[in-house]
């Protein structure tokens, strides 16, 4: 009786546990499935019948959910992350997220009619790179690699288009801006504030 009661009491917890995805490292196959799913979501939005504003909103939601925005933000600030005050780190991260989502969602119109093929998924420096080729009507095919974090739930950490890493390019931009503004993180935050509110 007691055994049974104890089991019954534990059942909901066991059930809940079975729903939680194990926090093991993602393997290339699951990373490829994740990218496949992500591309489906993005293209479903781009090719959908919603208004442009609704599409931008939906796209922002996907980016929020599927991209490790905080980690990307930290990477893009490079060595200045540690010299920034906690307040600056918080301000910067919040603005970075806004600007990135804005820049991506503005492009939603360009993805109309795009088709893709997935390539190989390989481990790369602790992450997993999933190759893809995007075909835009009337354009040469684009090679795009999606770099997915191997630790924890899969999230995009970088996008490499035709050999150019988006986060590396962004970091160069910020570090050059900082170098020309006395390595003052506040100057960067102010510039991002302008970008976030412009347009």
């Amino acid at each position: 009786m007691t055994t049974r009661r104890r089991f019954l009491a534990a059942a909901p917890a066991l059930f809940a546990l079975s729903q939680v995805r194990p926090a093991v490292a993602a393997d290339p196959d699951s990373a490829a499935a994740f990218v496949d799913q992500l591309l489906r979501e993005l293209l479903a939005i781009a090719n959908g019948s919603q208004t442009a504003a609704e599409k931008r909103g939906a796209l922002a939601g996907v980016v929020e959910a599927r991209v490790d925005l905080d980690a990307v933000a930290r990477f893009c600030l490079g060595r200045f992350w540690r010299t920034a005050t906690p307040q600056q780190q918080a301000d910067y991260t919040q603005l970075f997220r806004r600007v990135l989502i804005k820049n991506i969602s503005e492009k939603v119109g360009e993805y109309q009619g795009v088709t893709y093929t997935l390539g190989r998924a390989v481990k790369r420096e602790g992450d997993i790179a999933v190759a893809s080729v995007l075909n835009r009507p009337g354009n040469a095919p684009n090679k795009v690699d999606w770099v997915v974090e191997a630790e924890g739930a899969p999230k995009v950490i970088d996008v490499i288009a035709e050999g150019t890493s988006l986060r590396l390019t962004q970091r160069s931009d910020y570090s050059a801006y900082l170098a020309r503004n006395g390595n003052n993180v506040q100057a960067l935050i102010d510039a991002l504030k302008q970008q976030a509110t412009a347009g």
Partner: protein
Amino acid sequence: MRAPFRTALLILPLMATMLLGACATAPDASDAEAVADFKATNDPLEPLNRAVYEINDGIDVVILRPLALAYRAVVPDPARQGVRNVLDNLAAPVVLANDMMQGKPKRAGDTLMRLVINSTLGVAGLFDVATGMGYPQHSSDFGMTLAVWGLFDGGPYLMLPLFGPSNPRDAAGRGADMALDPFTWIGQGSTVKALGYARSGSDAVDTRSRYIDEVDKLKAQALDPYATLRSLHRQNRKATIDEVIADDRGTAAKRR
């Protein structure tokens, strides 16, 4: 052919003057991370490069971009594709020579077949028939060849007047490619010269017309467009070269 040299002669003294005191200031040696960043950027001539970038950008804003916009608006898509095909076909001999010097038989074979097929079936290069027959287009240049040989790494960043982002290796490669080009040595007189200008001009306008939106976006979104372009160019160039080096189709390495 003489005109580019004359332009170079005009520009050289200007560049020499600008070089005086044009070196980028290295960061404080005690800041190891800043020094590492400075080295990774590898742009010791940054002030000069930025000045050239501004000039190039000015020319682009006033002349090249408007021409490219008009070209894209006025000339229908199939005609523009035809222009691109002809330009690619004219460039094929130089691409072929470099494919061969790089020791890449599959790539050289693709280029040779393209040259033969598109010059004949493709009506003097107007139509790209070869791609559909399994001979896709790729580019190649002598800077790439030098990299494949492993003799030179790129070296510091260099912003060339008119030509844009480069480095000493690729800039030297440009000269070698000009010397390799059969159209440099065949014929003379004003007609040949005019055709040469027409080719360079249409190449510049057509190429620019394919990047209007990308460049607009870059200039709108980057806090420092010069540095962003530098990073993009370097990464893209490295990826292109790495891909050629890794291409062992048809080589002894593959058969082993």
